[in-house]
């Protein structure tokens, strides 16, 4: 039975003396409540709209409507989740107190290390904020990013209350575009790194585990791929193949940047293979797959995570670079890269457009790097002082 005050986000934690946690939870909750109130009518509207659509009424239901629905549901869901979380975590906490003191696990140590580093925390905050923005785009952006206003009278307006960052030459609200741009940039960063890490891990694992000619073959190939300047390789592939959907770009970037991870994983495996616990597992007759998945991979996770985080930043930069060459995400979709590309012509007059998008990129990448560094310092005992 969980007492009522535990269900109150933050309050429970406060009473248990988890001040920071409590404040954060409460803050988040407040944020979503405010959002909910601010957009109450939108949420309600989109729910009604959907309902009527489902009931087969003759109404126009566009993908944007869907976007709104999803976001509305997201907000509601978050409210519920936060309440549940605070309740349950409080209970776990209480139970833990009754039980005998258990030695804290590796991750909680890491977390303490991590908290000690303000920069790292800043990184986390930035990244979380960004993902929040990305999820809440329709509620944060005042306009549809591809919706063009009066192209003659409303083009290239200076910043104002209506248009925080003014409008571009299609009379589109630049602020909205920057907000929606976060989706693309984060998507690109996340997915292509995902691809890279997956491939890299598999290849690296094979090389490191089997060794012998397989290894030398793979590693030579990796060396070779590494000696191509990635950007040049990518522009070729993209320039040579006709389609340029965001998915292609993500895939290509992913396919071109797995080598680093492969090296890393191989190195890890080589070390770990010789460790006692592996020898032991072998001695106990563990099969290869078991050895790899139960012993080697989990133990190589740390460096993989770190490099992945640091990689996301570079990937976002890569996408930006491609956009600068006009090979990035195609118009009218907004990505930070192509906003800069699109508005660099306004550099002399409406400088704030390229500036804002550029800053968005910088901040994001900084965020990821801070996070990565923080993780490394926390996870890598060598660097602890």
């Amino acid at each position, binding site marked *: 039975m969980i007492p009522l005050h535990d269900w109150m986000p933050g309050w429970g934690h406060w009473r248990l003396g988890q001040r920071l946690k409590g404040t954060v939870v409460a803050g988040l909750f407040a944020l979503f409540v405010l959002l909910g109130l601010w957009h109450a009518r939108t949420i309600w509207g989109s729910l009604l709209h959907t309902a009527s*659509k489902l009931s087969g009424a*003759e*109404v*126009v*239901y*566009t993908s944007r409507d869907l976007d709104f629905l999803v976001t509305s549901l997201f907000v509601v869901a978050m409210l519920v989740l936060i309440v549940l979380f605070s309740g349950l975590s409080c209970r776990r906490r209480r139970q833990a107190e009754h039980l005998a003191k258990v030695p804290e696990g590796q991750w909680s140590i890491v977390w303490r290390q991590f908290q000690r580093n303000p920069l790292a925390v800043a990184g986390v905050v930035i990244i979380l904020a960004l993902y929040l923005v990305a999820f809440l785009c329709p509620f944060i952006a005042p306009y549809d990013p*591809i*919706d*063009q206003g009066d*192209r*003659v009278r409303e*083009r290239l307006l200076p910043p104002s209350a209506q248009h925080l960052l003014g409008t571009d*030459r*299609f*009379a589109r609200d630049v602020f909205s575009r920057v907000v929606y741009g976060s989706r693309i940039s984060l998507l690109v960063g996340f997915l292509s790194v995902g691809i890279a890490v997956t491939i890299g891990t598999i290849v690296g694992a094979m090389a490191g585990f089997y060794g012998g000619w397989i290894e030398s073959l793979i590693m030579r190939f990796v060396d070779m791929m590494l000696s191509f300047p990635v950007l040049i390789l990518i522009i070729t592939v993209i*320039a040579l193949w*006709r*389609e*340029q959907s965001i998915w292609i770009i993500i895939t290509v970037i992913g396919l071109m940047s797995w080598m680093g991870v492969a090296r890393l994983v191989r190195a890890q495996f080589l070390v770990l293979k010789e460790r006692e616990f592996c020898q032991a597992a072998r001695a106990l007759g563990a099969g290869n797959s078991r050895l790899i998945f139960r012993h080697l991979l989990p133990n190589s996770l740390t460096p993989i995570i770190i490099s992945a985080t640091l990689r996301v930043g570079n990937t976002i930069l890569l996408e930006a670079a491609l956009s600068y060459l*006009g090979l990035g995400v*195609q*118009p*009218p979709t907004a990505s930070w890269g192509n906003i800069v590309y699109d508005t*660099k*012509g*306004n*550099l*002399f*007059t409406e400088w704030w457009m390229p500036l804002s998008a550029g800053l968005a990129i910088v901040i994001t990448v900084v965020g990821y790097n801070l996070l990565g560094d923080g993780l490394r310092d926390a996870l890598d005992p060598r660097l602890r002082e």
Partner: protein
Amino acid sequence: MPRIARITLFIFLLAVPSCSSPSTSTDSPDAPGQRLIVKEITPDRGRSEERNLEYEAQWDEFDATPHDPGDALVVGLIADADSLNPLTLETKNAHDILDLLTLSLTHINPDYSSAPSLAQSWEFSEGHLELTFHLRDDVYWHDGVKTTAHDVCFTLRMQQAPTTGYPNIKDKQYIKECIVVDDFTARFTFDQAYPYQLFDVVDGHIVPKHILEAVPDGEMVTAAFNRNPIGNGPYRFKEWKAQQYIEITANEDFFAGRPPLDRILFKVVPDQENLVIQLRSGQIDFMERVPPRFYEELSREEDLVAHIHPSRSYTYIGWNLRDPRFQSLKVRQALTMAINRQEIIDSLLLEFGDISKGPILPIIWAYNPNLTDFSYDPEQARQYLAEEGWKDTDGDGWLDKDGQKFSFSLKTNKGNQIREDITVMVQDMLKEVGIEVRPNILEWTILVNDSTKKEFEAIMLGWSVNLKIDMTTLWHSDSISDKYNFISYSNPEFDRLNDQAVMERDEEKARQMWWQAQEMIVKDQPYTFLFTDKQINFIHKRFQSVQMETEGWHYNLPHWWVPQDQQKY
């Protein structure tokens, strides 16, 4: 200008087409300290074979009067030239530079009539099957060798040889042969008389026989001459640093006298913004085809003078007539009516352009002023589409017909900001009537590939209208198998008319036929004709007697000069 040069120009170099603002006032070209010069349309006399002595007088007069020599002109180019060999070059930049290096038989006046250049005079024989040129005897190649009729005939031979890969080989197809009468007389013969015989002959630059005859058959494309040419024009080639600059210097012993400017440097800067920066800060003196969005910015610069003139090109969206959806006339008309062309011009060309109604531009003699126009009318468009069975039955905001959503990809080439912008605007406009447009911006080679294979639904390109009026390549059903009629437009009636018109030598009769032809095409709307733009050029104010023409910004460059006290370099 060779057609291909125009077209490649349009696709490669026209990062942004430019245009002239009617709103800005125009005073007389000679007013001192005047910052804006707008060229109005000069009537096109390209078809006629008479000489225009007015222009010739101007030239002679200039050559007679002395001007301060010295100083240099730095021209900013967005892309490097490809070759300075008249037989192989394909980019407009290369062509412009070559005009200064090498002479043609004649040079083109602003009204497209021919004026003496390498040839002092020319005349047709009875029956109009022979055309004889009398060459100057004081023209030297820059290596000192005299230019003679042998060079002239050699040039034609090379142009006609398929293995040379001369881009405008078709312009030479009706010319039978070239006979060297004597060192300074060349005679061209024809199988039949037709309009533009003169044009076909004089088109292209003369090449030095004594150098190029050494090049083995088929190796012309890669001949060393491509990158260090020897000409016979007012300027001589000095240096070409790839991706950096091309330098040409005044030809001291040019027959018409040494041109005033010592040196002309073509500086390659592949970035639009960078070019503008350099123009503002005086790192370059001249920039052609300035994107309209920079016009206001630059017109504020005290040191710059804007030259604006109409272009010979128009931009359009072509509908693939093999696609059942676009086979319906009503749909095509609806599409045109759903696109607000005036708004495109107002917001992208900033009024530096006009709606183009048909395939022939106002500056051309055959232009039909009273064509029916499908002006912006989304209501009408929706109705037409509905009549053709396109309705939004599933209420997703998009039109559909037997379960098929009306959605097509609009392909255009990369590197042309305005066109990329148009796709974005058209997408938004057609959304209004419930049609989804998927912009697809492709590399030039890939786009060309698709169009040739007719793998597209809608395509946006621009044509630069040739001096010769001949609609065969674009509209004739025979050309469907060929490359340029990729929309597969076929109209037997039109074909017949076109074939007659091409061969009709009587200007009045021809005009009537072309008027009809235009009406047919406009009625069919195989294209949605978007606009014809005007070209903005900015040049530093120290340069005098600058006159820029549709035919080329460098029309009278050999005359440009800078007063001693203002000379910079």
